[in-house]
């Protein structure tokens, strides 16, 4: 894969990365509440030696820090998730959310401006009416492209707990938002109310045993959504069955391997991300050590399991002490669902080719990523004699983690976020 790295124009930690439906736009959110959108340069796309370049298209402050006076709690401005709406007209729309509030942003281009007003000068001052002797129609003349982002809707005050997911429905009218204990269904046009469709809060909080960790709508069936739990289970729900979907239609769960039991079994089985495949037949989950592919028609075990960094299983105690065991890794499918990708430590990310049963570890770092340079596969030495070019587990840098990755919906272009840098890689073209 060849790469081009974008200059670090933002210092803050990237917290989410998302391509839009055509892949032309790539949005990132960061801990400072900002959204930065990159646009693919498409002028030479049809040339055989085309190399994608993504340039900054728009930057705006989506969320600001807030204070909940009732609970004396600060509400972080960090953007947890961004989801694009399918494009319907010239403007682009996206949803961005922090812990408590979801916002719908309209991103529109302005490349013309009107000139030749009758009553105003060019600088906006009003003319003296006595000097006006003729009537003319203002004309639109080209100007430098200006991209404007404006908040169109604010969906607030519906979540007691921290929002972890948003997902736009295939009906293009509704979307869901999920926090630790509840999932709400919204209409994109209506901000003052939402429907609660899942509520797993126990009557007595002392009986709490699991929380919701991620939720997503099915890509084609507008009545179906899935949510994952901290216990490693997936629940598929059908909104036609009842208004409150506390009872699942299907429960996907794999029995725990008793030989792997440890103090930290619960933590590492907690699902950090769930994604439907593009064709809607599979779901992918990410827990701390593995990626699992589930067939919607088989509930008792995943159809495929890929170990991301099994060598960390013997290090769980240290990872607990340095908090890394709580890291929430995301995962993504490629356009035709043949390859899945997820991040790891030391700025490594992993790809698993489902058809060819191959996997590769790559690294996103400045030293290894000169433009047009092909990425070299990396290998971690789990134990025993370390070969040349291998890295031992003990020399991995656990501060360099790749939590957020995204794959272009059609092409082999990926976006990989390290702590505060964004890397874009594409398939080598000969």
């Amino acid at each position, binding site marked *: 894969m060849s790469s081009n790295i974008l200059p670090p124009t933002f210092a803050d930690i990237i917290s989410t990365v998302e391509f839009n439906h055509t892949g032309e736009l790539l949005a990132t959110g960061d801990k400072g509440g900002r959204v930065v959108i990159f646009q693919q340069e498409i002028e030479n796309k049809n040339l055989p030696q085309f190399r994608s370049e993504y340039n900054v298209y728009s930057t705006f402050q989506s969320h600001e820090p807030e204070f909940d006076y009732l*609970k004396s*709690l*600060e509400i972080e401005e*960090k953007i947890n998730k961004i989801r694009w709406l399918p494009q319907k007209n010239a403007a682009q729309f996206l949803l961005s959310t922090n812990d408590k509030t979801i916002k719908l942003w309209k991103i529109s281009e302005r490349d013309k401006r009107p000139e030749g007003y009758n009553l105003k000068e060019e600088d906006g001052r009003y003319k003296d009416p006595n000097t006006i002797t003729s009537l003319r129609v203002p004309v639109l003349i080209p100007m430098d492209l200006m991209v404007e982002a404006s908040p169109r809707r604010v969906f607030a005050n519906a979540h*007691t*707990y*921290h929002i972890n997911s948003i997902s736009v429905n295939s009906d293009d009218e509704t979307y869901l938002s999920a926090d630790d204990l509840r999932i709400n269904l919204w209409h994109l046009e209506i901000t003052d109310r939402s429907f609660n469709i899942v509520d797993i809060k126990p009557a007595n909080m002392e009986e*709490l045993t699991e929380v919701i960790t991620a939720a997503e709508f099915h890509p084609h069936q507008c009545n179906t959504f899935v949510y994952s739990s901290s216990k490693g289970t997936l629940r598929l729900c059908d909104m036609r069955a009842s208004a409150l979907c506390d009872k699942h239609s299907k429960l996907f769960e794999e029995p725990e391997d008793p030989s792997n039991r440890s*103090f930290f079994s619960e*933590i590492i089985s907690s699902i950090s991300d769930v994604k439907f495949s593009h064709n809607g037949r599979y779901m992918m989950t990410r827990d701390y050590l593995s990626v699992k592919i589930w067939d919607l028609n088989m509930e008792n075990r995943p159809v495929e399991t890929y170990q991301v960094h099994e060598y960390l299983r013997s290090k769980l105690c240290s990872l607990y002490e340095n908090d890394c065991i709580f890291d929430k890794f995301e995962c993504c499918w490629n356009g035709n669902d043949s390859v899945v990708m997820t991040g790891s430590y030391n700025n490594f990310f992993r790809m698993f080719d489902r058809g060819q049963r191959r996997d590769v570890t790559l690294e996103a770092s400045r030293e290894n990523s000169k433009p047009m340079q092909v990425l070299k596969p990396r290998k971690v030495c789990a134990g025993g004699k370390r070969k040349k070019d291998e890295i031992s587990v003990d020399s991995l840098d656990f501060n360099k983690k790749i939590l957020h990755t995204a794959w272009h919906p059609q092409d082999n272009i990926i976006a990989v976020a390290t702590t505060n840098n964004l890397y874009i890689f594409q398939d080598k073209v000969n």
Partner: protein
Amino acid sequence: MEVNVEARRILAVSISKLYASRTQRGGLRLHRSLLLSMVMRSARDIYHSSRETEGQTSEEPMETSSKEGCDSEITEDKENMSPTKQSRKRRGKASAAPDFLPSKRARLEPGEERYAAPMGSWRFDPPPTHIAHQGADLHQRSRDRGITGTMVQALRSI
């Protein structure tokens, strides 16, 4: 025995993480707190079951019988075996934090012999029945609830 030591260490690390998370920006994270409580429960269960195993091989001082608890063969955890220690437990509703917590005030009770724990060791006072929580009323909790029940009560205030 190693498992026992490991369990105590994990319990101590967990509790300090729990306390640290209270001051985190954005408030207590329910998911993280739940996972911490599960680790603490596992560690506590393992610690208790290993203590019971030890107790079966020696006179168990936690029994309410009045016989002398100290087996001369057991030299470690001497303080936990001492009958005077038993009488210090469950002193009504006094806000007594478990000993492995960073204590906020001096706890030297008059009239009792007490020696300073060596650096690096944790005095584990089973069962840990309550943790002081912002001046809220403390209840005597059943042995099964222990840390987890109290921690979730702290979560309930979210």
